[in-house]
């Protein structure tokens, strides 16, 4: 075969993109491990194993070369992201079901990497959340608030869940959601897990994910548009509806920014290129809509955190957004693709 231009190629490659994303999750994982114990780490190790097995199985069933496709690390990225989102000390079967749903149903049934309309990690998360609401809302208390299990106990929690007697505690988002009698100020005083701004551990984990995201931005793995739009929209919504701390308050902008999966979602989920809008304008719209939805679902919906639902809903809308946000090509008058 004769090779046509361009003959040169840049340094970027898909495995490198994936590895960079994996690397960028490290600070967040470290912080989570510090505050919630080894649960998240065990999740990721077991989840990664299941993910590679599922990926290999799917590739084999589809008659694709195993080595070539396994080397793109996309299964590991999906597993890591899903396992970070899962509560620490989840039982092994929960993780396995989640990963299998993500890799087999959400990814390979649609044609594999690049063809999946929904973010696999979030699809897996939502399937678990719907199916096993009890396990999925059982978060461990953070360091300083409750007792932290050790590594051995973490392994036990995962592989012999029946023998593990973990303590769980409502997350700040839960408490905020279920509160309808106390002022926000009192909430902070009565619940030890609220911490300084948005929850013990949560605030630092969010900041760590923010740092990881900033590093990815610096490495030009993705553009700033979608995450910034999401954070801005969330802040705006929280600011607009922040009533200064009554018992019906949805929480301050700072609380929303640093609680739950905000930063993790903004930099690791919303930026998933496969399932997001493609143009700059499209990504701004896509991110902003997710931000707004996160606030609405957190405050008015049935579930305490909302990143997964918001992302999946906007995954639906991505092609639609693309249709209306086609950029103006050089030498053309300004006009959208569909107009």
């Amino acid at each position, binding site marked *: 075969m*004769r090779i*046509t231009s361009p003959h040169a190629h840049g340094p970027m*490659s898909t495995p490198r993109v994936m590895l960079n994303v994996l690397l960028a999750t490290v600070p967040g994982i470290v912080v989570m491990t510090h505050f919630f114990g080894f649960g998240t780490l065990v999740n990721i190790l077991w989840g990664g194993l299941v993910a590679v097995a599922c990926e290999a199985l799917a590739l084999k069933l589809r008659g694709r070369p195993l080595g070539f496709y396994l080397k793109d690390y996309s299964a590991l990225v999906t597993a890591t992201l899903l396992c970070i989102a899962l509560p620490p000390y989840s039982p092994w079967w929960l993780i396995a079901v989640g990963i299998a749903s993500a890799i087999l149903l959400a990814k390979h049934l649609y044609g594999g990497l690049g063809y999946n309309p929904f973010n696999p990690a979030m699809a897996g998360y939502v399937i678990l959340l719907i199916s096993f609401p009890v396990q999925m809302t059982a978060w461990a208390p953070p360091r300083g608030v409750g007792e932290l299990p050790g590594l051995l106990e973490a392994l036990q929690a995962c592989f012999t869940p029946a023998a593990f007697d973990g303590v769980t505690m409502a997350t700040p988002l839960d408490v905020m959601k279920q509160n309808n009698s106390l002022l926000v100020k009192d909430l902070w005083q009565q619940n030890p897990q609220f911490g300084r701004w948005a929850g013990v551990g949560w605030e630092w984990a969010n900041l760590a994910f923010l740092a990881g995201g900033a590093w990815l931005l610096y490495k030009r793995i993705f553009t700033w548009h979608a995450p910034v739009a999401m954070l801005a929209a969330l802040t705006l919504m929280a600011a607009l509806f922040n009533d200064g701390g009554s018992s019906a308050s949805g929480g301050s902008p700072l609380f929303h920014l640093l609680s739950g999966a905000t930063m993790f979602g903004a930099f690791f989920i919303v930026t998933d290129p496969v399932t997001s809008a*493609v143009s700059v304008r499209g990504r701004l719209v896509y991110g902003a809509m997710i931000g707004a939805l996160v606030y609405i679902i957190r405050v008015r919906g049935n579930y305490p955190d909302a990143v997964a639902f918001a992302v999946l809903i906007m995954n639906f809308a991505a092609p639609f957004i*693309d249709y209306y946000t086609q950029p103006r*090509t050089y030498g053309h008058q300004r006009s959208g693709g569909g107009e």
Partner: protein
Amino acid sequence: MRKIYGFHGGIHPPENKHQSLRSPIADAGIPPELVIPLSQHIGAPSRAVVAVGDRVLKGQMIAEPSGFVSVPVHAPTSGTIAAVEDRQIAHPSGHAAPCIVIASDGRDQWIEHGGKADYTSLDKAELLERIRNAGIAGMGGAGFPAAVKLSVKPDIKIETLIINGTECEPYITADDVLMRERAGEIIEGTNILRHIVQPHETLIGIEDNKPEALAAMRAAAEGSDIDIVEFPTKYPSGGEKQLIEILTGKQVPSGGLPADVGVICQNVGSAVAIRDAVVDGRPLISRITTVTGEGVAQPQNFEVLLGTSMHYLLDKAGYSAEKNRRLIMGGPMMGFTVPSPDVPIVKTTNCLLAPAESELPTPPPAQACIRCGMCAEACPVTLLPQQMFWFAQGKEFEKLELHNLFDCIECGACSWVCPSNIPLVQYYRASKAEILQLRRDTEKSEHSRIRFEARQERLAKEEAEKEAKRAARKKAAEERAQQAATAGGDEDPIQAAIERAKAKKAAQQAGGGEVSELEKLEKAVATTRKRLETATGKLETAKAEGSDLVEALQTGVDKTKAKLEAAEKALHDYQQANSGEQAKPAAPTDAAQAAIEKAMAARAADASLSPEDKARGQLEKLRQRLEKSRTKLAESRENGDEEKIIEALEATVERLSQKVAEAEKQLQETEGA
């Protein structure tokens, strides 16, 4: 300081320019053989005006332009024309194209030429004519004829003249060294261009990675109105549209020309060539070519005669074929792989890149598109390459056009950044070709539809005309018969007899219209044969192209063949039946009738003869008739016939001798042919 605008996207590939900048421009010398393709530019190929064996001088025109968008070609050195034939040329498809081959005599003898140093005394048209006659076609790589670019419609005012010294492709330094070493000539050429275009402002755009060239150009432009503009290095700033946006902030409308926004852009190489053509009268016969890559020992720039084989030039730079896996004409971003190193250097060859495998490795197999959008970020024309890739894979051509596929300049930035190694540009190129093919096909079918309808109409018209003619003929024959019956004495008696006979025959045939039947059959055979020929021709080409239409065409040909056979059989049957009729004693009513029948039989026999034989036979017959007429005349005279009869006979003899003379002449011509 001038405001620098930016353009969307762009990339920063490793420049790799220093390798070929270590030494000044070297002269590549005169190779023993020069192969000069007739099409080195965009537009119609030139027409050769020399024949094999002709001796040509350096600078002599050896091929003339064959249209407005076309340029002449000149002999790069003196020598003899060794061949005018198809040779392999530097083209991505590796096909052969008409070339003129010159065996150089080494004397490098110039044809008489002269320029005009005081070009300001020449008017615009004359300058353009000189540029056109010098065969200058875009030296930047695309090869658009310079004169065409400069011939702007008079109602368009050119605001800005841009001289492109950007050279954004990695590895290439041809324009860089040109600016370093021949800055004065560039400025002079620019001034000629200014004289032609009369722009409001003149800008020379140079990327900031060429400080030496910038300094040299600034020094040369000192004191003039020419603005040397330095701007940050980014690929592909050297693209005409991108450079215009960088320097003026304007965008050339899609499908339009720079002149539409009041800009004309020329390459620095073209500026020098224009200066040489106008001031020295020297046509474009050489250019600066960068030879670089790890495959050559001494990468450097050469002044090389057009038509020099790449192999010759590479050897000058110390080429080692083992190190080099593919030879690229142009840069690593937009250049193409050359089919063989024996192809010639042409007007657009700005670089020969002979990279080692480690330098430009063969791309690994493409992975799945993860829609990361890096391509969209890099695209200098703000396309959505990932979406277009999607549509190209699905062959959704309408969507591709909606996503402005045809605005893609194929710069390769998207492929360069693609983390999944997808050969995006290749997809776009293929899709463009397919869309163009589809458009041609629709056009063709539309065309044939129109043609078919026109033919139907024509046939109907012809039929009607024939009908009218037939009626007229019948009427005329009747009238003439009447006339002959009433006023026979007034006419030439022979003529009258013939007329009579004709009228009778016409009367006989009036019912059947057999002649037209025969005609019809003959015509059917002829048209079917013709159709068979075209069908066979189409089938041949289809077979040659390996088209999947072969089978359909084959059945078409078979059908036509069968039809032809049927038509021939019908004709044959008819003729046989007819000749049988004719063979029967026709019961001639008078001698004239018999004579006419004989004549008709003779004509039928004639039809099978060659034109030459026919002419000869005709002549013979005419001579006989002349002889007969003469004897008749002599007899009449002897008999002392009426004056009138003698006169008539004399006239007949006269006419016949004229006819004989004509026939003789015709025969000579036929034989001569």
